[in-house]
C-alpha cells in the first residue's frame, strides 16, 4: 500500500470514528429525552436550595 493510500485510509477511519461518536452523542440525548428546563422553575430552585442549606 502506498503511503498516500495508507494516509487516506487512516483519515477515513478517523472521520468514521468521529462521525460514530457524534451519532452516539445525539442518539443518547434523543433516547434519554432529557429536559433540563425543569431546572429553571421556581419550585426546583427552591428544592435545590433546601437541599444545599
Amino acid at each position, binding site marked *: 500500500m502506498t503511503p498516500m493510500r495508507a494516509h487516506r485510509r487512516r483519515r477515513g477511519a478517523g472521520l468514521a470514528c468521529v462521525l460514530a461518536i457524534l451519532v452516539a452523542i445525539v442518539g443518547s440525548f434523543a433516547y434519554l429525552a432529557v429536559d433540563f428546563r*425543569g431546572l429553571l422553575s421556581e419550585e426546583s430552585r427552591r428544592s435545590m436550595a433546601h437541599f444545599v442549606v
Partner: protein
Amino acid sequence: MSALAAAQRDPLARRRLGLAISALVVLWPLARLAGIHPATLFEPGNLQVMGTFIAGFLPPSVQPDFLGYLFTATLQTLAMATAGMALAFLIAAPLAFCSTRVLSISAIGPADGQWIGQVARQLARSLMMLLRAVPEVVWALMFVRALGLGPAAGVLALAITYGGMLGKVYSEILEATDARPARALLQSGSGRVAALCFGLLPLAAQELVSYTVYRWECAVRAAVVMGFVGAGGLGQLMDQSLKMLSGGEVSSIALVFFALVTLADAISYALRRVLA
C-alpha cells in the same frame, strides 16, 4: 563464578530493600488504624457467611421480562454516560483553554493587562476545582430533587463533576506538551486558537483522546452508581433487585456490568488506535 554473580547483582538492591521495609513500617500501623484485618476474611465463620451470601446470587436470572428491563437499563446507563461526557467536554474545553498558561500572550513576553489573564486563569482553575470537589453522587442527589427521578439528574451530575476533572487534566496535558510550536505561532502573530489547534493539539492529541476515552469508561461505572440515588439505569434496577432480595437478578446485572466494562475497554482501545 563469584565475580560473575557479583557483576549481575543489582547495585540498588539494598536501597530498594530499605525502601520496601520503610514502606511496610509506615503502612502497617496505618492499616491497623484503618481497621484492616485481612486474616478475618479467612475465618471459618466468615467464609461460611460469605459463601451463603454468594450462593444466593446463583443461578443468574434469565426470565424474559427481567431481561427486557435489563436491556433497557443497560441502554439507559450507556446513554447517560455518553450524554454526560458530551456535556462535560463542553464545560471542560473552554475552561482548559482559559487556564493553560502556554497559550497566554504573556507567556511570550511582557504584555499590557497581564494581570487580567492571570485573574482569568485563576478563576477558571477555581471553577474547575469547585466542580470536581463535590462527588457526582451528591450532585445527582441535588438534581434529583429539581428534575425528579430519571436520567436527567445523572447526566447533569456527570457533566459537572467530569467537566471539572477533564478541564484540569486537559490543561495539565497541554502545559506538559512541547510549547515551542505554539510559542512560535504566537510570536509570529497568530491567535490563541490557532496556536492551540496547530501548535499544541497535534502533539497532545493522543494523550487527550486516551484520557477522554478512559473518563468515558469511568462515567459508565459512575452512571451505575448514580442509579442508586434515583438517576435510573442499571444502578436503579440493582437497587430494586437488592431490596426484593432477588440474588439471581443482582448477579445478572453484575454480569451485564462486567460485559459493559469489557466493552468500554475494547472501544477505548479501538478509539485510541484510530483517533490518535
